[in-house]
């Protein structure tokens, strides 16, 4: 492919106090590609996502999203990305509909009632539209979190352990939702530490260990066991 990768991370280093979390990390993500970043807890997956999300500034190195530098031009990057992380990013006292109205308007949109209803239907929350988020399950909150990006479509979805805490039905829904996001031309960077069905949507697997990418391989025909073996191999090496 002749075009530059949508995301280019080069020599990324991040130090917190005395602790060097990321050290010399390189990663490219193309348009319409989904990369699963595998790593143990504390390996730096969340930090990597936060750098890409412009929430954390690199100590050294660069992270470029859609041609904009995450550290120097965060506002431009923010227009291209959507982050779904541990925080649900929704207000518990508001209904699903009100939350969506708020976040969409804050992002500069002017959603009509029909558009809002349509977005909620996409994430299968249309029947709970007027219920307060306080009553939602983890899966429903995750779906509402994703609904924010239906009306204001970013080019990249950054997901931190998106399948965690979801039941089977919700996991299946998420898999389909991410697949259709990719089909629409979106890229995905997904951090995870399990080898389950989240890998199904990934085109590539990057193993993060020792602060850098220890292995970057197309997922292709790799089974969950293959991945687990590779992970054990490279994560061990790097320690």
């Amino acid at each position: 492919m002749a075009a530059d990768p949508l995301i280019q991370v080069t020599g990324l280093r991040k130090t917190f106090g005395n602790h060097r979390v990321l050290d010399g990390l390189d990663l490219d993500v193309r348009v319409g590609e989904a990369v699963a970043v595998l790593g143990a807890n504390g390996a730096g997956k969340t930090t990597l996502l936060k750098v890409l999300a412009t929430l954390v500034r690199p100590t050294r190195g660069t992270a470029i999203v859609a041609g904009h530098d995450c550290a120097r031009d965060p506002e431009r990057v923010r227009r291209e990305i959507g982050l779904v992380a541990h925080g649900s990013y929704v207000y518990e006292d508001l209904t699903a509909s009100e939350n969506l109205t708020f976040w969409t308007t804050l992002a500069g949109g002017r959603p009509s009632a029909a558009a809002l209803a349509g977005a909620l239907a996409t994430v299968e929350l249309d029947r709970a539209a007027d219920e307060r988020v306080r009553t939602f399950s983890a899966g429903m909150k995750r779906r509402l979190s994703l609904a924010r990006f239906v009306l204001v479509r970013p080019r990249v979805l950054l997901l931190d352990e998106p399948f965690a805490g979801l039941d089977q039905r919700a996991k299946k829904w998420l898999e389909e939702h991410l697949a259709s996001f990719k089909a629409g031309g979106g890229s995905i960077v997904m951090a995870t530490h399990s080898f389950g069905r989240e890998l199904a949507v990934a085109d590539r697997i990057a193993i993060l260990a020792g602060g850098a990418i220890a292995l970057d391989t197309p997922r292709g025909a790799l089974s969950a066991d293959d991945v687990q073996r590779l992970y054990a191999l490279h994560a061990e090496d790097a320690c």
Partner: protein
Amino acid sequence: MLTFARRAFIVVWKDLLVERRSKETLNALFFFALLLLFVFQFAVGPDRERLAGTLPGLLWLGFILSGLLGLGRTFVVERENDCWEALLLAPGDKSAIYVGKLAGNLLLMLVVEAILVVLFGFFFNLDLGAVLPALAVVIGLGTVAFAAVGTLFAAMTAQVRARELLFPVLLLPVQAPVLLATVKATEAVLLGEPLGSVAHWLKLLAAADVVYVAVGVLTFDFVLEG
């Protein structure tokens, strides 16, 4: 420009909705105001002469104490719902969020101040009818200044460890000139003097309002970042 206004407005709308559903802040502040009345009455005593002299100071003391409580909570809803980062990530000019929060705080403070004025009038047996418009002008100007810096500092201290200590420690010294101006102006107004006689104080307050809001709008980005 219109988008900015819409975004600022949606922040106010959201905060009012949350407040209406949870009813936390306004109820608590109302009771706090009532408590202050009692404390003041016991501290100053029934002597009407002494009361007349200290009234402007007490009134603003009441405004400031309730203001500190209310303003300090500006971003609590974001912290509790884990929405702080999401606010930062929402594309667009972040100062619209500042303006929205400022408007919400202003509304909240003005309501509490109105309640306090009514309570003061009731408990201390004052006839405020004639001076109400002039009083409203002074209170309005002073509250904008207080809320402007308070909203900015509230954002800063929201993520700091000893938030409840640092917020008043930072805010009160900065508000000293505003307090001087408002108490002096209130003094004159309560004595029935025309607003013209305290024009210099009002100009100072207006200048403070402009400076504080401008600095808030220009620096809020840097504060929200993290």
